[in-house]
């Protein structure tokens, strides 16, 4: 926390003695006040986006620049893979988790600049049942990858998922085990060029474009 000195916009009234009582009229007030703001790495920000623990996160998640990025173009030795298979469904579990470090419950999801049929993020937080959904739907989220064919479950894509199935994070809640899948219909060499995923969280559906 850093505090700075203010320029004080003094509010002055110059009215003769008894006329002052009860008048309180002012022509104008101009007050300068400060806003302190800074950015944090994704891991420490208001919406914290972190690499999960485990081999997939180590391999495919890069947090070095302060913002998270995913890279599936190669694997380290001894894997020596140099990309995903063509005409295949490839699933990467346990890449990221997202924590609400704000002050109120938010609906969390993502948008992507490549077609929803190419692939998407999903989460497996159904496992411990600690995360609720907007619709407070009883039961558990479907398992991935069995639900890949029906993007209405724990896929977090705000453009395809039903609102009632989106995850709600109370302050301090973490949406865990966020993964990514690539579908057979994609051409990995071209479909994800400059691919971008935008995490979006908001208190109300209208805050996140829904």
């Amino acid at each position, binding site marked *: 926390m850093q505090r700075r000195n203010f320029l004080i916009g003094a509010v002055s009234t110059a009215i003769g003695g008894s006329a002052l009582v009860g008048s309180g009229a002012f022509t104008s007030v101009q007050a300068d006040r400060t806003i302190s703001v800074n950015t944090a790495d994704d891991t420490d920000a208001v919406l914290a986006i972190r690499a999960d623990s485990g081999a997939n996160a180590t391999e495919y998640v890069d947090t070095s620049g302060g*913002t998270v990025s995913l890279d599936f173009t190669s694997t380290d030795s001894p894997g020596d893979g140099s990309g995903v298979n063509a005409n295949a469904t490839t699933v990467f579990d346990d890449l990221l988790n997202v924590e609400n470090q704000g002050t109120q419950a938010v609906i969390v999801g993502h948008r992507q600049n490549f077609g929803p049929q190419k692939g998407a993020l999903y989460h497996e937080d159904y496992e411990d049942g600690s995360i609720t959904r907007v619709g407070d739907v009883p039961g558990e989220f479907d398992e991935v990858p069995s639900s890949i064919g029906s993007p209405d479950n724990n896929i977090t894509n705000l453009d395809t998922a039903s609102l009632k199935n989106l995850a709600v994070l109370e302050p301090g809640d973490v949406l865990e085990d966020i993964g990514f899948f690539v579908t057979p219909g994609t051409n990995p060499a071209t479909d994800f060029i400059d691919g971008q995923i935008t995490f979006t969280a908001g208190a109300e559906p209208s805050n996140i474009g829904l």
Partner: protein
Amino acid sequence: MGSLAAGGAATIGTGAFTSVEADRDISVEVAGDQSALLAFKKATTGEDGAGNVTPNAQDYVTLPGNGQLALDFTGSDNGATGLNDNASSKFSNLFDIVNQGTQEVEVFVSPDQPGGIAFFAEGPDSNTGSNGNPNFPDPDNDGDQDQGAGFSDDDPVILGVGERVENISLRINTPDDLPSSGNTIQMTIVAQET
């Protein structure tokens, strides 16, 4: 002036003088923001200051009893140490502005850099400002007030005596809206005669 008639009686009623110096008092009191003529208060969950202070106001608004309003987004009570970079963050329900003067004023907030942080507001007793609502004029005709959203010098809110703009919110885009150096941005709150 300056010539005096010789006769005694003639001086009566002239009162000529070269200078007079008289000290009189002007009473100026500086009040804390919460009780000033243009009062700033933490946003609350109810209407017109009713209810509890909102979670966002609790976390991000500083308003000491006899001091000045400040907003602080360098951390959160839940462990954040700042805003996400390359992100657009909106914080709702931060503070209210109350007209405690005796005449109607138009009120707006602007940041110290053009194109910077955007402010939003809910007008007096209205959560859905519209151009048809006299409290939400739209002088630049950009339609902002249709969403009850705009709250800049282009889109002021009209406040009658005792009325308040509630739940003032702001949006910060990073890195675009960050100061070029340091971590402090100045916002200017203006109230003026309509």
